[in-house]
């Protein structure tokens, strides 16, 4: 996607935004973010990390304690909420219970004083878009969760806003429906060219749908990158832990070798790693290796790379992959995932093996 975001073409900017509800603790600390036009940006983070708060500030329902949010170059606080033209899908849908589906969709059009025939056409188009054309006469309470979700989506899009905010819209749905709707939402967003700010707990959702993902923790953006970068090159141990499955080993940097370094683990073994958050010998570090990048077959290991002893504790057959739990450097939770391929063999518990990885797959992060 490669959307570089410089302040000039940014559609939405958060500039050193802080937010406190009670005057004692900062829920959002120093938030800087630029969102380009047409971008699909996801805010991902654990519960209570301030995602909804950011969204509410952007929608204008909360005011920033400090800093400035601009929308299309104008400070958001100078535009009243109903003039912002932001479509919003609430975590709990917020469909008006006393109105039918059609009336719900008609509402934003009516308040914009759009003529009746025009209105009907738009409603029909929006409903067809989410494949809910035949539900126009129903009340929200007569719809299933997934259907309500789609109506909420249609309502947020029917008045053709330039920016759509979605707060965990798929949180309550089953896996299958989630996946279908994820697909529908991304498609729609790209088709209509709208800018989307999407909030979720679910990292898979974040990785599959977004152009860029902002990982939130503790009121800060820990990392803001495209999904692949985020996964492969986490910038700190929080992101590494939070995104995908991850093995961590702790140790001390023993040698810096330019682009790589050596780390002495707590039990004395030496491994290769890429220094990310470490710069000096003697620094404590957490190294992180993705389970699918761990190899035990010597033929697949890079020449000259360090290997390390491991004992097989558990072997799980998962169809497309094998998942092996190992004891490595005193850690019992080290996981290795291998593809179910003809040249792979099934390990047996108790077996002693040597494992290794390409140095660039092993990242030495902050301790």
């Amino acid at each position, binding site marked *: 996607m490669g959307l570089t975001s410089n302040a000039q073409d940014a559609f939405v900017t958060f500039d050193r935004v802080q937010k406190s509800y009670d005057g004692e603790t900062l829920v959002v600390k120093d938030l800087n973010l630029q969102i380009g036009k047409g971008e699909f940006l996801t805010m991902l983070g654990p519960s209570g990390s301030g995602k909804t708060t950011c969204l509410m500030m952007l929608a204008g329902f909360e005011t920033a304690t400090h800093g400035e949010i601009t929308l299309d170059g104008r400070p958001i606080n100078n535009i009243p*909420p*109903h*003039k912002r033209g932001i479509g*919003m899908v609430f975590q*709990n849908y917020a469909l008006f219970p006393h109105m039918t589906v059609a009336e719900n969709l008609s*509402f934003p059009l009516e*308040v914009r004083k759009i003529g009746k025939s025009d209105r009907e056409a738009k409603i029909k188009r929006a409903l067809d878009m989410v494949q809910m054309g035949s539900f126009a006469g129903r009340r929200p309470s007569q719809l299933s969760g997934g259907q309500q979700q789609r109506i909420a989506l249609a*309502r*947020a899009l029917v*008045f053709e806003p330039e920016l759509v905010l979605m707060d965990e819209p798929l949180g309550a749905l089953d896996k299958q429906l989630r996946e279908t709707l994820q697909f529908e939402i991304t498609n729609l967003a790209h088709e209509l060219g709208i800018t989307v700010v999407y909030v979720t707990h679910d990292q898979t959702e974040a990785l599959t749908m977004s152009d860029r993902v902002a990982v939130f923790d503790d009121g800060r953006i820990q990392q803001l990158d495209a999904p692949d970068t985020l996964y492969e090159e986490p910038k700190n141990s929080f992101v590494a832990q939070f995104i995908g499955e991850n093995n961590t080993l702790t140790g001390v940097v023993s040698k810096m070798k330019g682009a790589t370094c050596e780390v002495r683990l707590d039990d004395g073994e030496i491994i290769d790693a890429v220094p990310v958050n470490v710069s000096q010998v003697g620094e404590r570090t957490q190294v992180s290796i993705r389970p699918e990048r761990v190899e035990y077959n010597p033929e697949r290991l890079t020449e000259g790379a360090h290997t390390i002893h491991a004992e097989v504790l558990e072997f799980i057959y998962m169809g497309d992959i094998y998942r092996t739990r190992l004891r490595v450097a005193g850690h019992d939770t080290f996981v290795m995932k291998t593809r179910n391929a003809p040249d792979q063999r099934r390990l047996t518990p108790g077996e002693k093996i040597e494992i290794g990885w390409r140095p660039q797959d092993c990242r030495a992060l902050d301790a």
Partner: protein
Amino acid sequence: MTDASAGNASQNAATARREDAARTGPMLAADGRPLKASLNRALRRQKMRALLLIAPLLIFILVTFVAPIIDMLFRSVENQIVSETLPRTVVALDDWDAQDLPSEDVYAALAYDFNEAAERRRHTRLGSRLNYETTGLSSTFRRSGRGIEDVGETYAEQFIDLDEAWEEPETWTALMAHPDWLSAQAEWAAEAEAAGRDFDEPEPAFRLAPGIADVLPETADAYRSFARTIQQEDEDSPTEEEPWNTVYLALYRDLAAQPASAVAAYFGPIAAELAAADAAVDGFETVSLREVFGEMDDAWAEMPMWETIDAFSDPYTAGYFLAAIDLQLTPDGIEAQPEDQRIYILLFQRTIFMSLVITISCVLLGYPIAYLLSNLPARTSNLLLILVLLPFWTSLLVRTSAWKVLLQQEGVINDILVWVGFIADDARLQLINNQTGTIIAMTHILLPFMILPLFSVMKTIPPYYVRAAKSLGATNWTAFWRVYFPQSIPGIGAGCILVFILSIGYYITPELVGGRTGTFISNRIAFHISESLNWGLAAALGSILLALVLVLYWIYDRMVGIDNVKLG
């Protein structure tokens, strides 16, 4: 081992049998009874237990709520007092044509009835009952209670002149009383003598001699009425009392009406005296009972009295209901009350109108408060809610009296208005003892009943609906009016029902601050219950009020839907 397997075998057989039965007959439970029966039994036990648990409340409600309502409905049509107090008159009036004053027979029946009623001191009650229908009857009855003693005196004197024996109680008891009763009464008298002062055994109830009612029907009836009455009311013995004058009247009427042969065929005690009297009555000086009664009080010789008695002689009457809607029952059918006596329709209209005004004021004042309360942080809103409930902690009387202080012409509000210069000192507003006063005070008193349901409904409306509306482009007002308000309607409905029903039956406040123009129908009901003692009319008014509320409730259900009412 063998035992066990044998047991198993027989058990298996039993199971098989049971399964067979299940296939062919009804399903059986483990103990072999039909499954349905055991299920019913189990359910019945459950139901009984539930019933027992709610029994105290059920009984309480039946006794304190349902029973009084039924009693009220009954009282509003009940009218047994006329037929109970004047039973003979009512029967005699049956074939009265209502064209002219009734016959002597009716007056004679009235004399017997009235004499008993006066002795039992029931005539004034009947008088006040009939006074509701025709004013003035109450005093007629009271006056006649004193005069009734003399009715029939002419005949009594003539009988006694004829034979001194007619003055003697023994003559009468010999003629009238059953021998068994006589001996029982003598026994009682002896016991009473022996026991002295504190003897409280009741007298044996008087019984007529066999056959005497055939010979002297009216006399027997009149004498029994006399005997029973003095036994019960005065605890005197008929054997020692000279009968009332009306008994002599009855004797005269019997003897005058009977053919001589009937008396001649009588061979019981006192036959000789009776025969002599029979021979003499034809020469008796007679009087017209109508005139006698007319002398006692003119009303007895006038039509309205008789029309009223006739109209209300049925044990059940629509009269109270008619009165409650400003109509009256006349011999010519149902008619409107005279103009100056029509008050109830006006009062009903006023009650409904003012209740509506009060309800609307409560909505207008209560809605913003409830809205504020439901949108404040919990701690503040709880504090404010206590303030809303604060009035409940002070007595209703105190609150209402406070309004008197505030609203009177020399009161705080008028003073302030004069001081500010809105009104001139000599044009102070009349804020109390009229409708304004009632509306202000009752709105204040009933406001919590509006705020509480509104608050509890608004509390359940999540804030994100309004946010959603705003994000969809609605202004504050549109978001409120199209999204918030419709969802708060159930609260408005519940509050309105509460306030309206409470105010339609309110009594104390209108009584205290309503003056003449601000009173409700309930004040009139209270008046009839505690002052005029016309309970029948009070019950009819109450029943109409009840019906009115039910009708309004029904209309409300039709328009808004009762499911749309939420109390919390």
